[in-house]
């Protein structure tokens, strides 16, 4: 049933000022259109360039539903190629990552391609002489994604020619990446620790919204963070608060804490929680780290970098980053009701190992399929995915702290419990869904 295909007005009608129609979460056709339009018109995170440090290094992933691979070309630049042989469609690489040497070689008929995708050689090539092969799609080699941008190591790609350029799309929101990278004394990050992959039977946007939902932690996570606090309170007096409890406890902070932390919204659906402070503000200092930062940046600048403790920064459409602990989460859409969440961690180059150790502890305590905090959240997403099938009310409410004068696509700082950022995401959703319709 084509209710939405070719009908930009119907798609726009799914988003109201303070409500969102359930079809954005549960409708298969809307999901298909997201893959064709939303994930093609926006800059989508591909990977980090430390994953492809040397020429020939590659990393396979997806942009929306499209299999791609990121590769370090012989000229040292990072390319993004569609991951199929131009001949019969065979996926060129199946390992998550590796080194292909100077060229890719298709395992089916041994066609080979330079690491920018261009055709290098075909066995028994004379069979294509006088066939007009030069004009074929296949002769062009593996198709590159044309629009690729490497921002301080973070590689993004846009599949369509239309839509805003990289700087215009992200604007001031890039300051959250800056803060994460600047936390290395040498201004460099490396992917480290391995990726946690967690399958969610819910729509990908529920996860994105949850990143700036500051009214759920003290409720949904009472079972995990609340229990962590109560179990720790039973320890003998004077017991040093372990790193794990430092990580769990702030999830139980009261509403006022989250109201006062603030939310900042940016144009094109980006925004972050934790303008003034966050759940990451009060972690114990790591011995030797501040001294290294002062030596690298000077005291004033070091304090400014470490004083910025943004909580979750959402990069629309499907990335969230935590600068203070060098962790990112990518919400990969698989179906209207299925999302793969990848949680990646980074080492701050030239900083003490203890920082990475804490980051990895955070990741396994909060983002793993074995994480009790993860269990709390997924239970809510799955209940919503089911509950949205109720016909009596077909709208999701995102009205909290709404003002009729709320400007679209604005940069603004506001109360930390607002749902403005969710509204901001859906306005961007409507714009980039219909841009190419």
């Amino acid at each position: 049933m084509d209710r939405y295909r070719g009908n930009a007005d119907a798609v726009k009608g799914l988003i109201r000022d303070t409500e969102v129609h359930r079809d954005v979460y549960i409708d298969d056709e809307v999901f298909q259109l997201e893959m064709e339009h939303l994930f093609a018109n926006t800059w989508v995170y591909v990977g980090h360039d430390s994953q492809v440090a040397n020429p020939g290094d590659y990393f396979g992933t997806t942009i929306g539903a499209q299999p791609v691979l990121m590769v370090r070309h012989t000229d040292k630049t990072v390319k993004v190629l569609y991951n199929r042989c131009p001949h019969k469609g065979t996926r060129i690489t199946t390992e998550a990552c590796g080194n292909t040497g100077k060229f890719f070689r298709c395992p089916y008929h041994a066609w080979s391609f330079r690491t920018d995708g261009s055709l290098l050689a075909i066995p028994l090539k004379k069979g294509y002489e006088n066939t007009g092969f030069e004009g074929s799609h296949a002769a062009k080699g593996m198709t590159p994604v044309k629009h690729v941008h490497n921002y301080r190591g973070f590689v993004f790609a846009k599949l369509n020619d239309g839509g805003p350029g990289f700087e215009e799309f992200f604007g001031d929101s890039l300051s959250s990446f800056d803060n994460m990278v600047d936390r290395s004394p040498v201004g460099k990050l490396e992917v480290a620790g391995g990726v946690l992959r967690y399958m969610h039977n819910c729509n990908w946007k529920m996860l994105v919204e949850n990143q700036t939902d500051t009214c759920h932690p003290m409720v949904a996570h009472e079972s995990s963070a609340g229990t962590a606090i109560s179990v720790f309170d039973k320890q003998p007096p004077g017991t040093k608060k372990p790193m794990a409890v430092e990580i769990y406890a702030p999830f139980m902070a009261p509403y006022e804490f989250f109201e006062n932390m603030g939310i900042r919204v940016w144009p094109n659906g980006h925004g972050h929680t934790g303008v003034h402070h966050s759940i990451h503000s009060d972690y114990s200092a790591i011995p030797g780290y501040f001294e290294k930062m002062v030596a690298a940046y000077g005291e004033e600048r070091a304090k400014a970098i470490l004083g910025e403790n943004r909580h979750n920064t959402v990069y629309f459409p499907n990335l969230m980053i935590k600068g203070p602990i060098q962790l990112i989460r990518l919400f990969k859409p698989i179906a209207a009701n299925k999302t793969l969440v990848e949680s990646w961690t980074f080492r701050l180059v030239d900083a003490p190992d203890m920082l990475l150790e804490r980051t990895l502890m955070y990741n396994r305590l909060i983002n793993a399929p074995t994480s009790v905090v993860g269990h709390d959240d997924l239970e809510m997403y799955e209940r919503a995915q089911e509950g949205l099938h109720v016909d009596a009310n077909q709208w999701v409410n995102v009205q909290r702290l709404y003002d009729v004068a709320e400007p679209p696509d604005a940069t603004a700082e506001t109360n930390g419990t607002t749902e403005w950022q969710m509204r901001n995401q859906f306005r961007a959703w409507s714009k980039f869904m219909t841009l190419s319709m």
Partner: protein
Amino acid sequence: MTTPSDQQLIEFVQREARLIDQHRFEEWLELFTDDGMYWMPLEWGQTDPKLTTSLMYEDKLLLTIRVERLKGNRTFSQKPKSRCHHLLQTSQIDRRDEANNEYVTWTPMHYVETRFDEQQLYAAWVTHTLTVKDGALRIKLKRVDLVNCDAAFGNIQLFM
């Protein structure tokens, strides 16, 4: 007991699994030494639990938080509760180090966890590092290596 027999080591591993299957989690926690650890690696052949991510690397405090949480009134992901079932092969005794009071067993297993109409099957090898304390065997380290440790899982809520 001062020096456990091989049979006693085997029976300990079987009883440990039984306590989990029967949701006797407080008794299960008591099987760990005070500095005992439960480790579920994320990588095949993982050697470092701290600078490589793990699915779980938990001390007794963190395990206690899990056990308390499972009982909680507002633990919504356990309404209804999960159930589990361990199917163990007979443990093999990999190492008997009586001088250092340390015994290592290796136990292949299938583990089933179920909630609502969903039933998930996992296959793993469990390595127990055991010691005798106050006349009883205790766990210094329980390591669970899933055959598909790096797969994308849904919720795993109980203990393998």
